[in-house]
Protein backbone atom coordinates (compact mmCIF):
# COMPACT_ATOMS: atom_id res chain seq x y z
CA UNK A 1 0.00 0.00 0.00
CA UNK A 2 2.72 2.44 1.05
CA UNK A 3 4.86 1.24 -1.84
CA UNK A 4 2.04 1.89 -4.31
CA UNK A 5 1.37 5.37 -2.89
CA UNK A 6 5.06 6.29 -3.15
CA UNK A 7 5.32 4.93 -6.68
CA UNK A 8 2.24 6.72 -8.00
CA UNK A 9 3.21 10.02 -6.38
CA UNK A 10 6.71 9.83 -7.84
CA UNK A 11 5.42 8.74 -11.25
CA UNK A 12 2.94 11.61 -11.48
CA UNK A 13 5.56 14.15 -10.39
CA UNK A 14 8.22 12.79 -12.76
CA UNK A 15 5.89 12.83 -15.77
CA UNK A 16 4.45 16.23 -14.87
CA UNK A 17 7.90 17.76 -14.55
CA UNK A 18 8.93 16.08 -17.80
CA UNK A 19 6.03 17.80 -19.57
CA UNK A 20 7.00 21.11 -17.94
CA UNK A 21 10.60 20.67 -19.15
CA UNK A 22 9.55 20.48 -22.79
CA UNK A 23 6.77 23.06 -22.56
CA UNK A 24 8.32 25.85 -20.47
CA UNK A 25 8.77 29.13 -22.31
CA UNK A 26 12.00 30.19 -20.64
CA UNK A 27 14.97 27.85 -21.03
CA UNK A 28 16.09 28.61 -17.48
CA UNK A 29 12.76 27.35 -16.14
CA UNK A 30 13.22 24.23 -18.25
CA UNK A 31 16.58 23.59 -16.62
CA UNK A 32 15.06 24.04 -13.15
CA UNK A 33 12.30 21.54 -13.87
CA UNK A 34 14.90 19.14 -15.25
CA UNK A 35 16.90 19.27 -12.00
CA UNK A 36 13.84 18.49 -9.88
CA UNK A 37 12.90 15.72 -12.31
CA UNK A 38 16.34 14.11 -11.90
CA UNK A 39 16.15 14.36 -8.11
CA UNK A 40 12.78 12.59 -8.15
CA UNK A 41 14.20 9.86 -10.40
CA UNK A 42 16.96 9.44 -7.82
CA UNK A 43 14.32 8.94 -5.12
CA UNK A 44 12.69 6.33 -7.37
CA UNK A 45 16.05 4.51 -7.49
CA UNK A 46 16.21 4.54 -3.69
CA UNK A 47 12.80 2.88 -3.50
CA UNK A 48 14.24 0.20 -5.79
CA UNK A 49 17.12 -0.21 -3.28
CA UNK A 50 19.73 1.00 -5.78
CA UNK A 51 21.38 3.58 -3.52
CA UNK A 52 24.65 3.81 -5.40
CA UNK A 53 22.97 4.61 -8.72
CA UNK A 54 20.70 7.09 -6.94
CA UNK A 55 23.65 8.99 -5.50
CA UNK A 56 25.51 8.91 -8.82
CA UNK A 57 22.37 10.25 -10.48
CA UNK A 58 22.33 13.23 -8.11
CA UNK A 59 26.09 13.77 -8.25
CA UNK A 60 26.65 13.50 -12.02
CA UNK A 61 23.29 14.46 -13.51
CA UNK A 62 21.80 16.99 -11.12
CA UNK A 63 25.08 18.36 -9.79
CA UNK A 64 27.20 18.20 -12.94
CA UNK A 65 25.52 17.89 -16.31
CA UNK A 66 22.55 20.16 -15.62
CA UNK A 67 24.87 22.86 -14.23
CA UNK A 68 26.56 22.79 -17.66
CA UNK A 69 23.17 23.29 -19.32
CA UNK A 70 22.41 26.18 -17.01
CA UNK A 71 25.74 27.83 -17.87
CA UNK A 72 25.11 27.48 -21.59
CA UNK A 73 21.54 28.79 -21.30
CA UNK A 74 22.85 31.83 -19.44
CA UNK A 75 25.71 32.42 -21.88
CA UNK A 76 23.44 32.11 -24.91
CA UNK A 77 21.25 35.05 -23.97
CA UNK A 78 18.85 35.32 -26.86
CA UNK A 79 17.55 38.52 -28.34
CA UNK A 80 14.67 36.64 -29.92
CA UNK A 81 13.37 33.29 -28.79
CA UNK A 82 13.93 30.55 -31.39
CA UNK A 83 10.25 29.57 -31.30
CA UNK A 84 9.07 32.94 -32.58
CA UNK A 85 9.56 32.47 -36.29
CA UNK A 86 8.79 28.81 -36.67
CA UNK A 87 5.43 27.37 -37.64
CA UNK A 88 4.70 25.94 -34.19
CA UNK A 89 1.25 24.58 -35.03
CA UNK A 90 2.49 22.45 -37.93
CA UNK A 91 5.46 21.32 -35.84
CA UNK A 92 3.17 20.41 -32.95
CA UNK A 93 0.92 18.27 -35.15
CA UNK A 94 3.84 16.51 -36.84
CA UNK A 95 5.56 15.94 -33.50
CA UNK A 96 2.42 14.56 -31.88
CA UNK A 97 1.79 12.16 -34.78
CA UNK A 98 5.38 10.88 -34.80
CA UNK A 99 5.45 10.54 -31.00
CA UNK A 100 2.13 8.70 -31.15
CA UNK A 101 3.67 6.22 -33.59
CA UNK A 102 6.61 5.66 -31.23
CA UNK A 103 4.15 5.28 -28.31
CA UNK A 104 2.24 2.56 -30.21
CA UNK A 105 5.48 0.75 -30.95
CA UNK A 106 6.58 0.90 -27.29
CA UNK A 107 3.16 -0.33 -26.10
CA UNK A 108 3.39 -3.18 -28.59
CA UNK A 109 6.81 -4.18 -27.30
CA UNK A 110 5.70 -4.00 -23.67
CA UNK A 111 2.51 -6.01 -24.25
CA UNK A 112 4.18 -8.69 -26.37
CA UNK A 113 7.00 -8.84 -23.84
CA UNK A 114 4.57 -9.22 -20.93
CA UNK A 115 2.84 -12.05 -22.81
CA UNK A 116 5.97 -14.22 -22.55
CA UNK A 117 7.33 -12.98 -19.26
CA UNK A 118 8.86 -16.35 -18.30
CA UNK A 119 12.26 -15.45 -19.69
CA UNK A 120 14.75 -18.33 -20.01
CA UNK A 121 17.30 -18.70 -17.26
CA UNK A 122 20.07 -17.90 -19.71
CA UNK A 123 18.79 -14.34 -20.00
CA UNK A 124 20.45 -13.56 -16.73
CA UNK A 125 23.87 -13.68 -18.34
CA UNK A 126 26.53 -16.23 -17.58
CA UNK A 127 29.11 -15.83 -14.87
CA UNK A 128 27.59 -12.70 -13.37
CA UNK A 129 27.27 -12.70 -9.58
CA UNK A 130 23.70 -12.26 -8.44
CA UNK A 131 22.79 -9.49 -6.08
CA UNK A 132 21.93 -10.25 -2.52
CA UNK A 133 19.13 -7.93 -1.56
CA UNK A 134 21.02 -6.35 1.32
CA UNK A 135 21.04 -2.60 0.76
CA UNK A 136 24.14 -2.15 2.90
CA UNK A 137 26.18 -4.08 0.31
CA UNK A 138 24.85 -2.42 -2.85
CA UNK A 139 27.93 -0.24 -3.49
CA UNK A 140 30.40 -3.02 -2.82
CA UNK A 141 28.63 -5.43 -5.15
CA UNK A 142 28.43 -2.89 -7.97
CA UNK A 143 32.15 -2.33 -7.48
CA UNK A 144 32.83 -6.05 -7.84
CA UNK A 145 30.79 -6.39 -11.04
CA UNK A 146 32.21 -3.17 -12.50
CA UNK A 147 35.88 -3.97 -11.87
CA UNK A 148 35.85 -7.67 -12.75
CA UNK A 149 33.25 -8.54 -15.36
CA UNK A 150 33.02 -5.09 -16.96
CA UNK A 151 36.60 -3.86 -16.54
CA UNK A 152 37.27 -3.31 -20.25
CA UNK A 153 33.98 -1.45 -20.91
CA UNK A 154 34.79 0.64 -17.85
CA UNK A 155 38.20 1.56 -19.29
CA UNK A 156 36.59 2.36 -22.65
CA UNK A 157 34.05 4.59 -20.90
CA UNK A 158 36.81 6.50 -19.13
CA UNK A 159 38.61 6.88 -22.49
CA UNK A 160 35.38 8.26 -23.95
CA UNK A 161 35.17 10.80 -21.15
CA UNK A 162 38.77 11.86 -21.75
CA UNK A 163 38.13 12.31 -25.48
CA UNK A 164 34.94 14.27 -24.73
CA UNK A 165 36.84 16.50 -22.32
CA UNK A 166 39.53 17.31 -24.88
CA UNK A 167 36.90 17.77 -27.58
CA UNK A 168 34.90 20.20 -25.47
CA UNK A 169 38.01 22.26 -24.72
CA UNK A 170 39.01 22.37 -28.40
CA UNK A 171 35.49 23.41 -29.43
CA UNK A 172 34.92 26.03 -26.79
CA UNK A 173 38.30 27.74 -26.65
CA UNK A 174 38.64 30.61 -29.10
CA UNK A 175 42.34 30.20 -29.87
CA UNK A 176 44.50 27.41 -28.53
Amino acid at each position, binding site marked *: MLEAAVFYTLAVLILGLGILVISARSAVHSVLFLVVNFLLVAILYVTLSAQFVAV*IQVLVYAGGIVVLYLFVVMLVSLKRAPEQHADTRRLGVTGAVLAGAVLLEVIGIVVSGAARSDAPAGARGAGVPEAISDPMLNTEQIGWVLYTEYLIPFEVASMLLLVAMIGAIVLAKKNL
Partner: protein
Amino acid sequence: MLETFIIPLLQIAVLLNAVLVAVTFMVLMERKVMAWAQARLGPMRVGPHGILQAIVDPIKLILKEDITPVAADKWVFTVAPIMSLVPALVVFSVVPFGPDPLYYVADINVGLLFIVAVTSIGVYGIILGGWSSNSKYPLLASLRASAQLISYEIAVTMTLVSVILTSGTLSLVGIVEAQREAGVWFGFIQPVAFVLVFIGGLAETNRVPFDLPEAETELTGGFHTEYSGMRFALFFLAEYANIIVISAIVAIMFLGGWMRPFPNVEALAFLDLIPPWIWLIGKIFLFLYVFIWIRATLPRYRYDQLMRLGWKVLIPIAIGNLVITGIVKVLV
Protein backbone atom coordinates in the same frame (compact mmCIF):
# COMPACT_ATOMS: atom_id res chain seq x y z
CA MET B 1 5.62 3.06 13.96
CA LEU B 2 7.70 4.48 16.79
CA GLU B 3 10.98 3.48 15.24
CA THR B 4 10.16 4.25 11.61
CA PHE B 5 8.49 7.63 12.04
CA ILE B 6 8.41 9.20 15.49
CA ILE B 7 12.05 8.86 16.55
CA PRO B 8 13.50 10.04 13.20
CA LEU B 9 11.10 12.99 13.16
CA LEU B 10 12.17 13.98 16.67
CA GLN B 11 15.82 13.60 15.69
CA ILE B 12 15.30 15.78 12.62
CA ALA B 13 13.53 18.45 14.68
CA VAL B 14 16.31 18.55 17.28
CA LEU B 15 19.00 18.58 14.60
CA LEU B 16 17.44 21.39 12.55
CA ASN B 17 16.95 23.59 15.59
CA ALA B 18 20.46 22.87 16.81
CA VAL B 19 21.95 23.80 13.42
CA LEU B 20 19.96 27.03 13.16
CA VAL B 21 20.87 28.08 16.70
CA ALA B 22 24.50 27.15 16.04
CA VAL B 23 24.47 29.36 12.94
CA THR B 24 23.19 32.42 14.81
CA PHE B 25 25.79 31.96 17.52
CA MET B 26 28.50 31.35 14.94
CA VAL B 27 27.78 34.78 13.48
CA LEU B 28 28.24 36.28 16.93
CA MET B 29 31.41 34.23 17.45
CA GLU B 30 32.75 35.45 14.12
CA ARG B 31 32.17 39.08 15.04
CA LYS B 32 33.72 38.65 18.47
CA VAL B 33 36.81 36.74 17.29
CA MET B 34 37.35 39.21 14.44
CA ALA B 35 37.06 42.04 16.93
CA TRP B 36 39.65 40.51 19.26
CA ALA B 37 42.00 39.89 16.34
CA GLN B 38 41.71 43.57 15.42
CA ALA B 39 41.91 44.84 19.04
CA ARG B 40 38.25 45.94 19.11
CA LEU B 41 35.40 44.93 21.39
CA GLY B 42 32.80 43.82 18.86
CA PRO B 43 29.07 43.87 19.68
CA MET B 44 28.61 44.91 23.31
CA ARG B 45 25.17 46.57 23.52
CA VAL B 46 22.61 43.74 23.64
CA GLY B 47 22.92 41.64 26.79
CA PRO B 48 26.12 40.98 28.72
CA HIS B 49 29.07 41.25 26.31
CA GLY B 50 26.62 41.31 23.40
CA ILE B 51 25.54 37.68 23.77
CA LEU B 52 21.91 38.42 22.91
CA GLN B 53 23.04 39.88 19.57
CA ALA B 54 22.61 36.33 18.20
CA ILE B 55 18.87 36.55 18.93
CA VAL B 56 18.36 40.15 17.88
CA ASP B 57 19.93 39.75 14.43
CA PRO B 58 17.45 37.10 13.17
CA ILE B 59 14.52 39.14 14.53
CA LYS B 60 15.76 42.16 12.62
CA LEU B 61 16.03 40.14 9.40
CA ILE B 62 12.52 38.70 9.80
CA LEU B 63 10.99 42.13 10.40
CA LYS B 64 12.71 43.85 7.47
CA GLU B 65 10.85 44.55 4.25
CA ASP B 66 11.24 41.84 1.63
CA ILE B 67 11.94 43.56 -1.69
CA THR B 68 11.66 41.91 -5.10
CA PRO B 69 13.28 43.92 -7.94
CA VAL B 70 10.84 44.88 -10.69
CA ALA B 71 12.90 43.33 -13.48
CA ALA B 72 13.55 40.10 -11.58
CA ASP B 73 12.25 36.70 -12.64
CA LYS B 74 9.97 36.48 -9.58
CA TRP B 75 9.46 32.75 -9.58
CA VAL B 76 13.16 31.87 -9.78
CA PHE B 77 14.00 34.73 -7.43
CA THR B 78 11.86 33.08 -4.75
CA VAL B 79 13.05 29.53 -5.36
CA ALA B 80 16.80 30.29 -5.39
CA PRO B 81 17.32 30.86 -1.62
CA ILE B 82 15.37 27.69 -0.86
CA MET B 83 17.47 25.65 -3.30
CA SER B 84 20.53 27.01 -1.57
CA LEU B 85 19.45 26.27 2.03
CA VAL B 86 17.74 22.87 1.72
CA PRO B 87 20.81 20.85 0.57
CA ALA B 88 22.91 22.41 3.33
CA LEU B 89 20.44 21.17 5.94
CA VAL B 90 19.75 17.76 4.32
CA VAL B 91 23.42 16.83 4.64
CA PHE B 92 23.16 16.78 8.45
CA SER B 93 20.94 13.69 8.26
CA VAL B 94 23.98 11.45 7.74
CA VAL B 95 26.36 13.17 10.18
CA PRO B 96 26.85 10.79 13.14
CA PHE B 97 27.14 12.48 16.55
CA GLY B 98 27.82 9.21 18.36
CA PRO B 99 28.23 5.44 17.96
CA ASP B 100 24.59 4.64 18.74
CA PRO B 101 21.64 4.85 16.26
CA LEU B 102 20.09 7.45 18.56
CA TYR B 103 22.84 9.92 17.61
CA TYR B 104 22.26 9.94 13.84
CA VAL B 105 19.19 10.06 11.59
CA ALA B 106 20.53 7.60 9.01
CA ASP B 107 23.63 5.52 8.43
CA ILE B 108 23.65 4.70 4.71
CA ASN B 109 26.25 2.73 2.81
CA VAL B 110 26.91 5.67 0.48
CA GLY B 111 27.15 8.31 3.24
CA LEU B 112 30.16 10.22 2.00
CA LEU B 113 29.01 10.18 -1.65
CA PHE B 114 25.61 11.37 -0.41
CA ILE B 115 27.23 14.40 1.22
CA VAL B 116 29.25 15.23 -1.90
CA ALA B 117 26.19 14.78 -4.13
CA VAL B 118 23.79 16.84 -2.03
CA THR B 119 26.19 19.72 -1.47
CA SER B 120 26.72 19.88 -5.25
CA ILE B 121 23.01 20.78 -5.58
CA GLY B 122 23.60 23.95 -3.54
CA VAL B 123 25.31 25.62 -6.51
CA TYR B 124 21.91 26.09 -8.20
CA GLY B 125 20.81 28.51 -5.51
CA ILE B 126 23.86 30.66 -6.21
CA ILE B 127 23.59 30.62 -10.02
CA LEU B 128 19.83 31.19 -10.10
CA GLY B 129 19.92 33.83 -7.37
CA GLY B 130 22.45 35.83 -9.36
CA TRP B 131 20.69 35.33 -12.68
CA SER B 132 17.15 36.03 -11.55
CA SER B 133 18.08 39.35 -9.90
CA ASN B 134 18.54 40.74 -13.43
CA SER B 135 21.44 42.90 -12.30
CA LYS B 136 25.01 42.79 -13.51
CA TYR B 137 27.01 42.54 -10.28
CA PRO B 138 25.03 39.61 -8.86
CA LEU B 139 25.33 37.83 -12.22
CA LEU B 140 29.11 38.27 -12.32
CA ALA B 141 29.40 37.16 -8.71
CA SER B 142 27.24 34.09 -9.25
CA LEU B 143 29.28 33.03 -12.31
CA ARG B 144 32.46 33.44 -10.26
CA ALA B 145 31.00 31.55 -7.32
CA SER B 146 29.74 28.62 -9.33
CA ALA B 147 32.96 28.28 -11.36
CA GLN B 148 34.93 28.31 -8.12
CA LEU B 149 32.63 25.78 -6.46
CA ILE B 150 32.75 23.36 -9.38
CA SER B 151 36.55 23.59 -9.73
CA TYR B 152 37.28 22.96 -6.06
CA GLU B 153 34.65 20.24 -5.80
CA ILE B 154 36.77 18.10 -8.14
CA ALA B 155 39.86 18.44 -5.94
CA VAL B 156 37.93 17.75 -2.73
CA THR B 157 36.15 14.71 -4.15
CA MET B 158 39.38 13.25 -5.50
CA THR B 159 40.97 13.71 -2.10
CA LEU B 160 38.03 12.10 -0.31
CA VAL B 161 38.50 9.02 -2.54
CA SER B 162 41.97 8.45 -1.07
CA VAL B 163 40.49 8.58 2.45
CA ILE B 164 37.82 6.09 1.37
CA LEU B 165 40.64 3.80 0.17
CA THR B 166 42.20 4.00 3.64
CA SER B 167 38.96 3.35 5.52
CA GLY B 168 37.46 0.80 3.13
CA THR B 169 33.93 2.11 3.60
CA LEU B 170 31.72 5.02 2.52
CA SER B 171 29.57 5.02 5.64
CA LEU B 172 30.49 7.85 8.02
CA VAL B 173 29.94 5.63 11.06
CA GLY B 174 32.18 3.04 9.40
CA ILE B 175 34.89 5.66 8.79
CA VAL B 176 35.01 6.58 12.48
CA GLU B 177 35.05 2.91 13.47
CA ALA B 178 37.90 2.32 11.01
CA GLN B 179 39.88 5.02 12.81
CA ARG B 180 39.26 3.25 16.12
CA GLU B 181 40.53 -0.02 14.63
CA ALA B 182 43.55 1.65 13.04
CA GLY B 183 44.30 3.16 16.46
CA VAL B 184 45.12 6.53 14.91
CA TRP B 185 43.18 9.45 13.44
CA PHE B 186 43.25 9.57 9.63
CA GLY B 187 44.61 13.10 9.92
CA PHE B 188 47.95 11.50 10.74
CA ILE B 189 47.78 8.77 8.07
CA GLN B 190 46.58 11.19 5.38
CA PRO B 191 48.04 14.61 6.28
CA VAL B 192 48.06 15.78 2.64
CA ALA B 193 44.41 14.89 2.23
CA PHE B 194 43.61 16.67 5.51
CA VAL B 195 45.15 19.93 4.30
CA LEU B 196 43.63 19.61 0.81
CA VAL B 197 40.10 19.02 2.08
CA PHE B 198 40.43 21.94 4.46
CA ILE B 199 41.62 24.32 1.72
CA GLY B 200 38.96 23.01 -0.63
CA GLY B 201 36.37 23.54 2.10
CA LEU B 202 37.46 27.17 2.48
CA ALA B 203 37.01 27.64 -1.26
CA GLU B 204 33.69 25.83 -1.50
CA THR B 205 32.16 27.94 1.24
CA ASN B 206 33.50 31.14 -0.37
CA ARG B 207 35.51 32.10 2.71
CA VAL B 208 38.57 34.32 2.88
CA PRO B 209 41.08 33.98 1.16
CA PHE B 210 38.77 32.62 -1.57
CA ASP B 211 35.85 35.05 -1.11
CA LEU B 212 36.10 36.42 -4.66
CA PRO B 213 32.34 36.00 -5.27
CA GLU B 214 31.63 38.36 -2.38
CA ALA B 215 34.45 40.81 -2.94
CA GLU B 216 32.74 43.95 -1.62
CA THR B 217 35.23 46.29 -3.23
CA GLU B 218 34.56 44.96 -6.75
CA LEU B 219 31.08 43.49 -6.74
CA THR B 220 29.22 45.45 -4.04
CA GLY B 221 28.20 42.29 -2.18
CA GLY B 222 27.99 39.12 -4.20
CA PHE B 223 25.18 37.14 -5.78
CA HIS B 224 22.71 38.18 -3.04
CA THR B 225 23.08 41.94 -3.57
CA GLU B 226 19.44 42.33 -4.65
CA TYR B 227 18.07 40.22 -1.82
CA SER B 228 16.76 41.65 1.42
CA GLY B 229 14.91 40.58 4.56
CA MET B 230 14.21 36.91 5.15
CA ARG B 231 15.25 35.75 1.69
CA PHE B 232 18.69 37.23 2.25
CA ALA B 233 18.69 35.51 5.65
CA LEU B 234 18.10 32.15 3.94
CA PHE B 235 21.24 32.63 1.80
CA PHE B 236 23.10 33.68 4.91
CA LEU B 237 21.93 30.59 6.81
CA ALA B 238 22.90 28.33 3.91
CA GLU B 239 26.40 29.80 3.80
CA TYR B 240 27.03 29.27 7.50
CA ALA B 241 25.34 25.85 7.54
CA ASN B 242 27.74 24.85 4.75
CA ILE B 243 30.69 25.98 6.86
CA ILE B 244 29.45 23.80 9.72
CA VAL B 245 29.01 20.87 7.29
CA ILE B 246 32.59 21.19 6.04
CA SER B 247 33.88 21.41 9.62
CA ALA B 248 31.87 18.32 10.58
CA ILE B 249 33.15 16.33 7.59
CA VAL B 250 36.76 17.24 8.32
CA ALA B 251 36.30 16.43 12.02
CA ILE B 252 34.72 13.05 11.26
CA MET B 253 37.11 12.00 8.52
CA PHE B 254 40.40 13.22 9.95
CA LEU B 255 39.98 13.83 13.68
CA GLY B 256 38.08 10.72 14.74
CA GLY B 257 34.56 12.17 14.87
CA TRP B 258 32.89 11.53 18.22
CA MET B 259 35.86 9.66 19.73
CA ARG B 260 38.01 11.11 22.49
CA PRO B 261 41.73 11.65 21.75
CA PHE B 262 43.79 8.43 21.88
CA PRO B 263 40.80 6.05 21.98
CA ASN B 264 43.09 3.05 22.53
CA VAL B 265 44.94 4.40 25.57
CA GLU B 266 43.34 2.97 28.74
CA ALA B 267 44.90 5.60 31.00
CA LEU B 268 42.73 8.30 29.40
CA ALA B 269 39.45 6.43 29.97
CA PHE B 270 38.21 9.19 32.29
CA LEU B 271 37.72 11.33 29.18
CA ASP B 272 34.81 9.05 28.26
CA LEU B 273 32.79 10.81 30.95
CA ILE B 274 32.24 13.52 28.38
CA PRO B 275 29.50 12.26 26.01
CA PRO B 276 30.51 11.59 22.36
CA TRP B 277 28.37 14.35 20.81
CA ILE B 278 30.20 16.96 22.87
CA TRP B 279 33.51 15.72 21.50
CA LEU B 280 32.27 16.08 17.92
CA ILE B 281 30.76 19.52 18.53
CA GLY B 282 33.99 20.60 20.21
CA LYS B 283 35.99 19.52 17.16
CA ILE B 284 33.54 21.30 14.86
CA PHE B 285 33.93 24.52 16.84
CA LEU B 286 37.71 24.17 16.69
CA PHE B 287 37.45 24.26 12.89
CA LEU B 288 34.96 27.12 12.96
CA TYR B 289 37.48 29.06 15.02
CA VAL B 290 40.22 28.31 12.46
CA PHE B 291 37.93 29.51 9.64
CA ILE B 292 37.39 32.82 11.44
CA TRP B 293 41.07 33.10 12.37
CA ILE B 294 42.03 32.70 8.68
CA ARG B 295 39.48 35.36 7.75
CA ALA B 296 41.06 37.79 10.18
CA THR B 297 44.58 37.04 8.94
CA LEU B 298 44.86 36.45 5.19
CA PRO B 299 44.31 38.79 2.20
CA ARG B 300 42.16 37.85 -0.77
CA TYR B 301 43.38 35.97 -3.87
CA ARG B 302 43.13 37.38 -7.38
CA TYR B 303 40.72 35.44 -9.62
CA ASP B 304 43.33 33.94 -11.98
CA GLN B 305 45.47 32.95 -8.98
CA LEU B 306 42.48 31.22 -7.47
CA MET B 307 41.78 29.21 -10.62
CA ARG B 308 45.46 28.36 -11.06
CA LEU B 309 45.65 27.12 -7.47
CA GLY B 310 42.57 24.94 -7.97
CA TRP B 311 43.38 23.37 -11.30
CA LYS B 312 47.18 23.34 -11.46
CA VAL B 313 48.10 22.71 -7.83
CA LEU B 314 45.30 21.12 -5.80
CA ILE B 315 43.96 18.67 -8.41
CA PRO B 316 47.42 17.27 -9.37
CA ILE B 317 48.30 16.87 -5.67
CA ALA B 318 44.95 15.15 -5.07
CA ILE B 319 45.56 12.71 -7.95
CA GLY B 320 49.13 12.05 -6.76
CA ASN B 321 47.90 11.42 -3.24
CA LEU B 322 45.29 9.02 -4.58
CA VAL B 323 47.86 7.07 -6.61
CA ILE B 324 50.29 6.85 -3.69
CA THR B 325 47.52 5.73 -1.34
CA GLY B 326 46.56 3.03 -3.84
CA ILE B 327 50.14 1.78 -4.17
CA VAL B 328 50.62 1.69 -0.40
CA LYS B 329 47.30 -0.08 0.01
CA VAL B 330 48.35 -2.78 -2.49
CA LEU B 331 51.84 -3.23 -1.00
CA VAL B 332 50.92 -3.28 2.70
